[in-house]
């Protein structure tokens, strides 16, 4: 700088001073300094700022893709599909990376997606978002049309939509998945882990137009969900649903439920509720329809409980099937126990056949409350069946220490204790399985699970014989008989509890039975809720449905008739309605 300054002080023109060495050096060094500045800046960006810049870069290019696992198929015990995943596509957009969409393309997009143009524009408006769904679960064909519009930043994604071929028939057992593909109801929810499998992932670099450039990490492959084979037999399920619907409609009932169990394994062969819903189109779904009544609803089982105190008395050797009992009405404290068709005396078999409150309560009172509680507890009352079904009710069995004698008496004919239909059907396995209580299973079993012995096989056999009389002439459920087979069972009619009081005109009609009675294969429990078609007695409202379901199911399963000579049924119009207490 010395020379330019000295130069500046001179006023005289000096051509020789063009490009004074000092000025040249100054300009050259200045340029050098600027380049040095660039190098320092580059060094700063590539060392100090490197992490920050690379993270910013990754935030823009690096994407973790989910490789969706296929959800497992749900089938019935014979491999018939009950829930399958069909490929669909969802349209999404990345507003952040999108140039403005021309109005004509926007309109075409909205038309294809059947959405108002304004809605589509609103979804694309937030330029900070990098992912927004425009429409989910459309057909691959429609998605192809959308992609053909060629709008940059609009992409599709493969998804699966659950389809339920059996529709409303299986709705309550199978349940359904939500739009996110996760189980929301039924076994779809209960077995979520097994069905869902495990999604894989893939970490990739993407260019701005969404093409994958390279994988940044090893691809984690998805593990598909497993196939869930239910214990349900779809043929029996269809039959059960159809007959239940008929029964509910015929009796103008509010609702109804059916449980069909394999009497030797405890597998649920059918479980139906009515009303039901279509899981494939849930737009009109009301909570009322969604409830799996047979599993989650509790009711007082009424006379269908009577075989249990009777079996307890036989097991203890206190009575035999032909023991005569005094069945005149009697008083416990201020309350009178009476039958609707009083007879001064009945055999133990007749107590079952005619559904005598007096007889069954007298047998119950032969035991201490603790003994009776223990017996009921062993049958699984007051406990969940642990079928794994979501929302399963455990029922109510009060602790014996608070029992008064009248309560113990009413509990023998099914009041003061509440159960679910599946619990009730399951308890009947002690009769079909030679005294051993079976666990219920919604999945097909390779071999039966160990049963819990409750009765001696001989007691169970005696009970089967006694319960056969219910469907024979003079029994409460002649309508439940089945051509070619002996049928055993028990009717029940109970008043519904409403706000702690028994309603006068709201009943539940029940029939729980099994067949063939001599070598039981099936347990069928039918519950009709609030029948208002004239009669409300279990034998009348539930008996015919039981008969139809049992007859059809035995035929479907090819069970050998145990009463081939019994080829005539008592005509229904000649069957006197034998009422039982409600």
């Amino acid at each position: 700088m010395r020379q330019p300054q000295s130069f500046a002080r001179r006023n005289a023109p000096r051509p020789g001073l063009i490009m004074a060495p000092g000025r040249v050096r100054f300009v050259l060094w200045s340029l050098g300094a600027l380049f040095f500045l660039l190098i320092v800046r580059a060094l700063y960006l590539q060392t100090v700022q490197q992490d920050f810049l690379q993270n910013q870069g990754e935030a823009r290019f690096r994407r973790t893709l989910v490789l969706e696992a296929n959800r497992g198929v749900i089938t019935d015990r014979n491999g018939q599909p009950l829930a399958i995943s069909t490929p669909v596509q969802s349209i999404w957009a990345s507003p952040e990376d999108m140039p403005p969409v021309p109005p004509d393309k926007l309109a075409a997009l909205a038309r294809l997606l059947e959405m108002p143009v304004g809605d589509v524009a609103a979804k694309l408006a937030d330029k900070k978002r990098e992912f927004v769904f425009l429409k989910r679960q459309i057909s691959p064909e429609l998605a192809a049309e959308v992609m053909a519009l060629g709008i940059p930043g609009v992409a599709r994604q493969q998804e699966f939509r659950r389809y339920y071929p059996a529709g409303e028939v299986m709705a309550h057992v199978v349940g359904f998945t939500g739009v996110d593909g996760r189980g929301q109801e039924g076994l779809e929810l209960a077995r979520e882990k097994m069905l869902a499998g495990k999604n894989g992932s893939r970490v990739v670099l993407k260019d701005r137009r969404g093409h994958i450039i390279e994988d940044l990490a090893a691809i984690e492959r998805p593990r598909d969900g497993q196939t869930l084979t239910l214990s349900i037999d779809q043929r029996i399920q269809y039959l059960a649903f159809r007959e239940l619907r008929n029964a509910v409609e015929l009796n103008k009932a509010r609702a109804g439920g059916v449980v069909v169990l394999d009497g030797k394994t405890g597998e649920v062969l059918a479980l139906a509720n009515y009303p039901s819903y279509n899981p494939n189109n849930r737009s009109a779904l009301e909570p009322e329809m969604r409830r799996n009544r047979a599993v989650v609803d509790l009711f007082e089982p009424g006379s269908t409980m009577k075989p249990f105190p009777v079996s307890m008395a036989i097991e203890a050797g206190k009575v035999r099937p032909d023991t005569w009992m005094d069945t005149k009405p009697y008083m416990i404290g201020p309350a009178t126990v009476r039958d609707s068709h009083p007879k001064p005396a009945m055999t133990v078999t007749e107590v079952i056949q005619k559904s005598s409150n007096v007889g069954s309560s007298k047998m119950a009172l032969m035991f201490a409350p603790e003994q009776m509680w223990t017996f009921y507890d062993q049958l699984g009352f007051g406990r969940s069946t642990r079928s794994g079904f979501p929302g399963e009710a455990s029922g109510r069995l009060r602790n014996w220490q608070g029992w008064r004698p009248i309560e113990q008496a009413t509990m023998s004919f099914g009041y003061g204790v509440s159960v679910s239909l599946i619990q009730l059907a399951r308890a009947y396995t002690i009769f079909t399985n030679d005294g051993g209580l079976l666990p219920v299973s919604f999945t097909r079993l390779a071999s039966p699970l160990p049963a819990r012995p409750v009765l001696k096989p001989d007691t169970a056999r005696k009970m089967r014989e006694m319960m056969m009389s219910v469907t024979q002439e003079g029994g409460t459920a002649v309508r439940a008989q089945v051509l070619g087979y002996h049928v055993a069972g028990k009717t029940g009619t109970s008043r519904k509890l409403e706000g702690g009081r028994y309603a006068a005109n709201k009943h539940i009609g029940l029939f729980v039975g099994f067949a063939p009675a001599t070598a039981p294969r099936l347990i069928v429990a039918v519950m009709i809720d609030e029948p208002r078609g004239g009669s409300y007695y279990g034998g009348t409202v539930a008996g015919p449905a039981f008969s139809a379901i049992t007859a059809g199911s035995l035929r479907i399963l090819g069970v050998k008739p145990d009463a081939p000579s019994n080829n005539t049924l008592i005509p229904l119009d000649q069957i006197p309605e034998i009422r039982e207490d409600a």
Partner: protein
Amino acid sequence: MIVSGARRFSPVTAFDEALLWALALLLSISLVMVYSASIAYAEADPATNSRFFFLTRHLLFLGIGLVGAGAVFTRPTAWWQKHAGRLFLIGLVLLVAVLIPGIGKVVNGSRRWISLVVLNFQPSELMKFATVIYAADYTVRKSAKMHSVTEGFLPMLSAIVVVAFLLLMEPDFGALMVVMAIAMGILFLGGINLRIFGGLAVMAAAAIVLLIVTSPYRLKRVLGFMDPWEDPYGKGYQLSHSLIAIGRGEWFGVGLGGSVEKLFYLPEAHTDFIMAVISEEFGFVGILVVIGLYVWIVRRAFHIGVEAKKLERYYPALLAQGVGIWLGIQSFFNIGVNMGLLPTKGLTLPLMSFGGSAMLMNLVAVAVLVRVDWENRRIMRGYKV
């Protein structure tokens, strides 16, 4: 001591071979990097539709540029001095012409191109060259009056103001900055009175600030450059992606062809932001090599000027250094923009970026530089020029 370098480079050959090799290296890198940076755009854009679209054009421009440079090399420096005024006038006429709708073509809001059937020409690139030729001539002519405001300074000032006005009409702020740097640099080297120079520098700085503040377009660019991470999807989009590219390069880069930023993230990857792609693919080493080549060329230009001056060839001396200032300051501006040191200007990287007019005029300028050196060597050997 840089100036004393003249002693070390004794002319034994007809040409400055080191300069020519540096140039060849720079042009080779340019060829590869323009192709690398443009492949994705060229392939994906329906208008170009071939991955070679920009490469073939770049080759064509290089060819035209080299032919032009050959032709320019045949002109003695005295010829340029004789026609300096005329060239400057042609430059002005073209700058006016480009502003006339129908002749000038608007791209991205700027009217910078004159359409010539198949190719477009950018008069501002010619103006940079004309400024070197004219400012050197002016300085030599008026060397006796460099202390005078009215005779030495005002004529040049008015010429600069006219050019500035025309460039701002386009607008092309970047070209204006380069033209001003060249003119002021040559005046400074030519011995202009420091007080006058100081006054001019202050005025120029004030004018630049005023121009930035009064134009929302320029202000936006300046603000975007101050903190690109404040609005990385709007104002700071281009710069943030350029910085990411540089940060991804680390020491040795991700390798040729490995740039992710060039895959539609970084706009203008093969033109104004080619340095970002070079940084990403070749890292700090790549930056050092490219900057090193520019430093070498600038340094040679200044040495050639110093040698010419020793031979009392003042006009060629100023020409050579003028070319040095041009290439130096424009590459600094461009790389500075890429690295976020300077606001975005729309300037190419000389001898590197894709762009026909810029490449042609850069090569022509280098041809003049080589001619000055060639003449120096002839005279030193006792030949006539």
